[in-house]
């Protein structure tokens, strides 16, 4: 999942800030529960769960990021 985010085009990378959480850590568990996530892997955008239990195709991920960027 982390790799799919790292491979996004530069123009997408430039409009977002990425935070990766390790669920083995206490901080990671806290964030996981704040997001009310249930399974792995998980991507949240602007604090909202968007993708869960799957690694989205790059086009879908880009679209989800752009949609939320445009409505910010």
């Amino acid at each position, binding site marked *: 999942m982390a790799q799919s985010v790292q491979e996004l085009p530069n123009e997408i990378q430039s409009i977002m800030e990425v935070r990766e959480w390790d*669920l*083995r850590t206490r901080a990671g*568990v806290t964030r*996981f529960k704040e997001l009310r*996530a*249930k399974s*792995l892997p998980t991507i949240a955008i602007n604090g909202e769960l968007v993708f869960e239990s799957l690694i989205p195709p790059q086009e879908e991920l880009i679209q989800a990021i752009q949609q939320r960027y445009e409505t910010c």
Partner: protein
Amino acid sequence: MYVFKPKGVCPKEIHFSLKAQSIEQIRMVGGGCPGNSELMGRLLKGRRIDEVQSFLEGIVCRNGTSCADQLLQALLMVQSGQLQAADPITIMHEEHRSLRKLAVIGGIRGNLVGLQSVLAAIETAGIEDLYSLGNLVWPHGENDAVVDLASKHGIKHVQGPNDRQAAYGVPIIGVGSETIRLQNRDRLLLDPLILSFQLGKRQAVAFQGGFIQGIHGFSDFSPYATEIIMTCNLSDYLRDESVFPALATMTDHFTADLVLFGHTGQWKHVRLGKVDFINIGALVSGEQYEYAVLELKDGDLAVQFRTIPRGNIPQECNHEKGNG
């Protein structure tokens, strides 16, 4: 904190802490004269190692040595780098044998009759070992009698938070240090926080609960930390079943494939991924005493939660719960 295992003297361990090469605290654990031990601690507190050397050397009690002499050896080993600070997250490894059938009890809480009942029930059941997940002691419990009985029967015990506080002489309401004999405080102190053992080919870990995370020295990557954080924090001791998919995924990161824990007082067995999670409940369950028996049958793990009616003879009842 340094932990030194002396030779030729009564205490099993010498625990001491230093601050900038000065002695902060000394405790002789598991034997010896408590009065002399306390005196030594008071007299040496705040003194530098090189200052106390002349006080400690040359004192002989038995076997050509003494507590003072052993303490001196320990202090010199610290100075030379041969003795490192002990890991405060103590793990007991049962490395030398693989069990096939054991009983597990939780939350004894000073209940002497309950412990006696379980010991009587398992006496003829072919149980190889009895493990106890804290707390042994509890406000207004028969704490000394329980610790004595557990010690007499060689029960392997992991500390609960009350046990740990009692061991360090921290008063708990109704369980002040003055109510538990020093010998039993030492026994509790020597109990580990985590127990690691083999059940057949299954690698198992047992702990009381997530309070371990609050102990100085615990890190997210300590041995068995993943098991503890996933069990206690992520799934809230298996009470939050909505995160079971994530918990199942995370079992790939576990060292153990059998996780025993207490804390909740509830009995539960769940298998997720490659791991069996067993919540060992409290000894007293309504009008019954309850304990678990874990056994390998044809290579598979069989878990029974057995009950003993309080006041009656022991009975066996299969209490298999969860989707194990």
